[in-house]
């Protein structure tokens, strides 16, 4: 089931109306049932995979709670890591590594034969696997007590708003929310709906209308002009932001209808003035996951400068690989790692909290934002292209464009106008948790704005089905 289909809206209304009259345990049972329906709607067979890893992690955590023996605890953690990463490796990475190894051996004159599995990637596997891993690792580290109620644990793993594309939640934040009584807060529910509305606008009006233009250009870069490829790259920057942050807005807003608080995942990333700041604002739940469960265990910044740089590149490289089994994603991650090191080296390590107050940015701030945005766009070329040669072709054509003729406007202007409008609105709302967080505004103005957005969605949204980009990760 996808957020942008009418069936989801019907599903949400039904679950919402059934949910509130129930006692806490009944609410959890309903959420679990709804989450399984939500996930099984896509392919019910993969429910078994989800339940398998959830079962392993639940048992491992109980085992960890009962044991103080370091050897046994390590073995239990290893079992959890093997189960979770094994599923990920089998379904997501097996063919990639087998293919890469085969290419490598072929280059050395060997002719190996490998089995290729061609498995369908279960939706959201990277998200729920990382969420589950955070639980067993935290229990192993003694930061968290193992949960005994299987219902609470299954709810934590499968909560439908964030099951397939995050935010990647932490057990220490979420499990207490399943254990406590929930109270309906009309203001929180209204704000949740506002955030959902903005998410729908981002996804359906901006991301999905940009998608065909971007796809057309990136499908045949050799026959698309450099100017159009440049526009397509800008377009993709907004497509992926609106697609993913739109999903997150809907997820967070949806959770608030049930009195759950999910973590923030995006903080207006394109207003960043440096790459380190960008990573404080983009896919926050993933970057903090890598910080806590990979970067810190590698030594963080309490190591030599060379080792630290290596750690950064490892984290960013693996972050790229997390997105997909393709070298393009690895290069995307390594590029960001390189940017990160360069920004730190020159001391340009801004943070969101240092942002200048006022309606307009200063010239220096604007220049830093433009530079940061273009660096991310350069990396997006690798993220979006089908292969590394394609990405290099796109870059070469873009770089050659100024020498090959007069500048061209994008062949599809309307999606860029929507993206421009979004940028403007988000700039002025950038200090709020989401663009429509305006409880203090007069009711009439708010309703007028809501209607404007509803009509923009009804009249401007793309009608062809465009899956959320991050579903494939």
């Amino acid at each position, binding site marked *: 089931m996808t957020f942008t*289909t*009418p069936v989801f809206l019907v599903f949400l209304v039904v679950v919402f*109306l059934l949910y*509130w*009259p*129930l*006692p806490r345990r009944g*609410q959890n049972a309903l959420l679990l049932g709804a989450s399984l329906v939500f996930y099984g709607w896509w392919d019910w067979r993969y429910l078994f995979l989800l339940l398998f890893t959830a079962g392993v992690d639940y048992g491992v955590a109980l085992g960890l709670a009962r044991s103080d023996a370091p050897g046994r605890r390590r073995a239990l953690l290893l079992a959890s890591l093997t189960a979770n990463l094994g599923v990920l490796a089998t379904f997501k990475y097996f063919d990639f590594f087998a293919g890469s190894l085969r290419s490598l051996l072929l280059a050395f004159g060997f002719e190996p034969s490998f089995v290729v599995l061609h498995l369908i990637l279960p939706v959201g596997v990277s998200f729920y696997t990382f969420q589950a891993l955070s639980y067993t690792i935290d229990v192993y580290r003694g930061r968290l007590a193992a949960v005994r109620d299987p219902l609470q644990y299954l709810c934590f793993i499968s909560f439908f708003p964030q099951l397939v594309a995050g935010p990647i939640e932490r057990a220490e934040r979420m499990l207490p929310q399943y254990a406590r*009584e*929930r*109270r*309906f*807060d*009309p203001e929180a*529910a*209204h704000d949740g*709906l506002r955030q959902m509305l903005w998410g729908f606008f981002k996804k359906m009006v901006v991301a999905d209308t940009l998608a065909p233009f971007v796809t057309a250009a990136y499908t045949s870069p050799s026959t698309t002009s450099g100017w159009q490829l440049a526009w397509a790259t800008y377009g993709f920057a907004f497509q992926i932001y609106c697609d993913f942050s739109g999903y997150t807005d809907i997820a967070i807003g949806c959770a608030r209808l049930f009195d759950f608080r999910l973590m923030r995942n995006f903080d207006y990333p394109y207003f960043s003035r440096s790459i380190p700041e960008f990573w404080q604002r983009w896919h926050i739940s993933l970057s903090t996951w890598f910080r806590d469960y990979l970067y810190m265990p590698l030594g963080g910044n309490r190591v030599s400068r060379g080792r630290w740089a290596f750690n950064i590149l490892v984290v960013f490289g693996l972050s790229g690989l997390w997105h997909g089994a393709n070298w393009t994603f690895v290069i995307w991650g390594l590029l960001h790692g390189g940017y990160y090191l360069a920004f730190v080296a020159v001391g340009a390590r801004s943070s969101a909290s240092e942002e200048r107050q006022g309606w307009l940015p200063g010239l220096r701030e604007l220049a830093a934002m433009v530079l940061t945005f273009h660096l991310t766009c350069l990396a997006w070329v690798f993220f979006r292209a089908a292969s590394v040669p394609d990405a290099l072709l796109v870059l070469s054509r873009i770089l050659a464009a100024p020498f090959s003729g007069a500048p061209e406007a994008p062949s599809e202007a309307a999606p860029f106008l929507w993206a421009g409008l979004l940028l403007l609105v988000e700039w002025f709302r950038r200090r709020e948790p989401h663009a429509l967080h305006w409880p203090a505004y007069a009711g009439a103005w708010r*309703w007028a704005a*809501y*209607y404007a957005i*509803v009509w923009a969605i*009804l*009249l401007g*949204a793309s*009608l*062809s*089905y465009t899956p959320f980009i991050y579903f494939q990760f």
Partner: protein
Amino acid sequence: MRGSGGSVVRFAVRIALFWLPVVVVFGLLEVGLWRAGESWPVDRVLDVQQRQPDAIFMRGLLDQSFYAYKWRGVLRARPRVLALGSSRVLKFRRTMFGTESGVFYNAGGLVTNVGDLEAFAERLPPEPTPQVLILGIDLWWLNPAHAPGDEFLIEDDGAWSWQGHLLALRTLLGRPSAIGPLFRPQLFPHPEGIGVIARRRGEGFRPDGSLESNLPLPQTAEGWAFVDREKPPILRSIRRGVGFFEPAEDVAAPRLERLQRALTRLRSRGIRVIGFAPPICSEGVRLLDTEPRQSGLWNAFRRRVAAVFAAEGLSFFDASSPDRLGLDDRYMIDGIHAEETFHVHLLRRMLDDPRLAALLPGTLPVLDAALSSPKTNFWHAELAPPASPGSP
């Protein structure tokens, strides 16, 4: 409610109130679409057409759902004679078949590539199957450079597509003058039609599945001059090698094999398939014959399809140009579609084969009468009305 008394109810009411104006606007437009027959599901359309023989059907805002409409039409009609192919076979109609008229159905639009044909052959239910199947095969079905299609979306009815409804409502909101007639059928020139195009233009599918084009009949000799009404024009597509005419040197062998498999399957079920290549206007044929990028596929298509039919012991008629029947472009309404009279000539030519004439008793006199009637023109033939049920 947990701890909050009626706050959930108040919240729900407030949200419902917010959505009310949107629901009212869209609800009213939906009522208009229903009144015009635009949003009727195809089963309802077929029910009404069964009761009202004059009711033609063509949507203008929602998806036409060719596949669903024609497939269900075939299943209901269970015809003894079936015309099958793309839009280029749509001019065969019930009245051409004389005493056979009650058992004819035109499924033009249901099969637009070899994948569709295979799917049709596989999914056609057992008895009663058609005894005669007139199959129009388009050049591009076998063009390796043309997308294979292979969709056969017989389950998809545009009446149930929320995207289709949203698109229709967007169109109406952008063209408010189109809204009034939806509520007052008498404002349409053809109020008996089902769907916006049928009501506005009098164009659509008859209950026998054939197409009523309702083009204004030329009134002068000059008016009969050929006009390529297809958009984009066919001659331009051939010259540029785009649309249906991507250049290729030969037919796609795998598709030819699939065509043969489908024919074998149909033949094994006792269905007599009569194949034909529908016509292209004479300038188009000249271009296909002489353009080096086009001639390879064009020649191979006619030769190899005929060979496949011959191998199956079936008849194939090369009607790929009007002059092959001794006709000219005046019988065409655009570069790739001929009108009804052409099809009368084609059917008459088919019945020169006594085996086929035996399969369609009663058809020959009707065709001969039509072709000799002074009322028959280049587009419309003077065909006797179909025999009513029970009449001799």
